[in-house]
């Protein structure tokens, strides 16, 4: 699992780490949304630049960062190439058999790549710099208006935060079961696709069983400690909205305005 950082949390101290999680989430959503709204190269590159800058501001090692997301970058690149080859229109630049590279296709492909790369980088920085607890608190915050609709927001967010809490545990269990089956001669990178998928049964089955057992134990422990429902739960960690957060939010305003004016 070492080369796979998407969805992990890297505790640390930096400008980005210290921002309020709500601020970070809004900013990420803004980048993604605005990036989808614009087709201007200037804006697309600007947003990519902002998200790349945030890696530095989060004091994440660039090398480490891109090793961790290279799989996704590759997938996006592949999809972009398909877009590039199959969107028709405009001047034909190059053709080979039934494949045709058109001006339109080139533009669509590159824009697609830039948009998704930006979104991926921003999202990864957010996840790397925000603790699972802060993420679930943030979701609780934004979902809380839905309480009016009688939605059990507290239960949902508690469930979610427990789920997030158990992601690292599941990863650890997964790799220890993987090791055990490898030691018994299981080979995971050989043979047909079907065969490979079959080889994962000895890993996934115990992982699933384990998780169910863990869930049962946790439920029992919670009941024993008098847990009834998620309402009126107080929080040990309170989120702090600081001046920097307001400034970051304020900085988005001119960007949004400019983007809509220049459209």
């Amino acid at each position: 699992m070492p080369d796979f950082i998407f969805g992990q949390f890297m505790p640390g101290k930096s400008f980005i780490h210290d921002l309020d999680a709500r601020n970070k989430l809004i900013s990420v959503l803004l980048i993604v949304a605005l990036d989808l709204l614009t087709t201007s190269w200037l804006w697309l590159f600007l947003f990519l630049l902002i998200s790349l800058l945030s890696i530095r501001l989060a004091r994440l090692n660039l090398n480490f960062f891109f090793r961790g997301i290279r799989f996704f970058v590759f997938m996006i690149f592949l999809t972009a190439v398909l877009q590039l080859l199959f969107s028709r229109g405009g001047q034909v630049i190059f053709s080979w058999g039934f494949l045709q590279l058109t001006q339109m296709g080139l533009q669509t492909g590159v824009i697609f790549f830039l948009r998704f790369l930006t979104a991926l980088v921003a999202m990864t920085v957010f996840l790397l710099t925000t603790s699972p607890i802060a993420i679930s608190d943030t979701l609780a915050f934004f979902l809380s208006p839905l309480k009016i609709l009688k939605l059990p927001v507290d239960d949902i967010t508690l469930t979610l935060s427990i789920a997030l809490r158990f992601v690292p545990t599941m990863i650890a269990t997964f790799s220890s079961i993987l090791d055990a089956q490898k030691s018994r001669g299981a080979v995971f990178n050989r043979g047909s696709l079907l065969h490979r998928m079959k080889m994962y049964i000895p890993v996934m089955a115990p992982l699933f069983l384990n998780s169910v057992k863990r869930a049962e134990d946790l439920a029992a422990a919670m009941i024993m400690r008098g847990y009834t429902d998620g309402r009126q739960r107080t929080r040990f960690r309170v989120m702090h909205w600081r001046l920097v957060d307001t400034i970051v939010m304020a900085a988005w305003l001119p960007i949004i305005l400019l983007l809509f004016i220049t459209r």
Partner: protein
Amino acid sequence: MAIVFKEVNYSYQSKTPNAFQLLKNVSFRLADGSFTALLGQTGSGKTTLLKHINGLLKPSSGQVIVGDQIISSKTSEKDLADLRKNVGFLFQFPETQLFAPTVLQDVAFGPENFGQTKPSAEQIAKKTLEMLGFDMTLLNQSPINLSGGQQRLAALAGVLATEPQILLLDEPTAGLDPSTAKRVMILFKKLQQEKHLTILMATHDMDAAAEFADQILLMQQGKLVKQAAPKDMFQEKELVFQKILALPKVTTFAIRFAAKTGYTNQKLPISEKELISFLQRALSQDPSGKETTPHA
């Protein structure tokens, strides 16, 4: 098969900012057919070391030599398949690896992977379970329905059924009831003596280490502190004092006894038998230090 470590270093996530060195310049040699206990505080790197012997981890630098196969940072996954055929690894809490619909199928998983036909794999599986004293009426039960101890035995059978020449054991008796634990330890000893297996066992059970191992490796914070026979290792009061090493019950008792009686200038016992003669000698001596009875 002999196991040799040559200046092995291992760093976790070596290419990331939170790289952390878990093994530091570890070198040792374990002779073919030996039974070694791997001791050390929790987090000292025992499991990490074991994982190098069947190639689940590869050294960041240095070499691990198992039989005539050399494992270094460059060894490919393909070469490791052969190695794993010869090395059985019983993980800590191995019952988490049980997956098949029946105990028999689960135990046959290993031999099948290593090239046995299904019928012969099941034959080996039955034989192995029988050898472990497993209740054979449970053969076609789902492993989930077994008790914890039965699950452990089934998992152990799953490892032994691959008929390895080297057996790596990670706290094999933790959480077992005392009588099963004893039986399993005696079985390991028998496998060493009769089938000439090379065994390396990470454990916190000093009594078992003293009783069954012919040699001890002591780890502390990723370093190998000392390699010695149990009778010499457990004399190291200085290491005990620094909390790097713990002692068998009888040895602790002898130290306390000696402290009370001032009877200190004798080799510490590590088994009940040795304790008895230790006490006999101590009691036959009057406080002035002269022996009152001539024999021990």
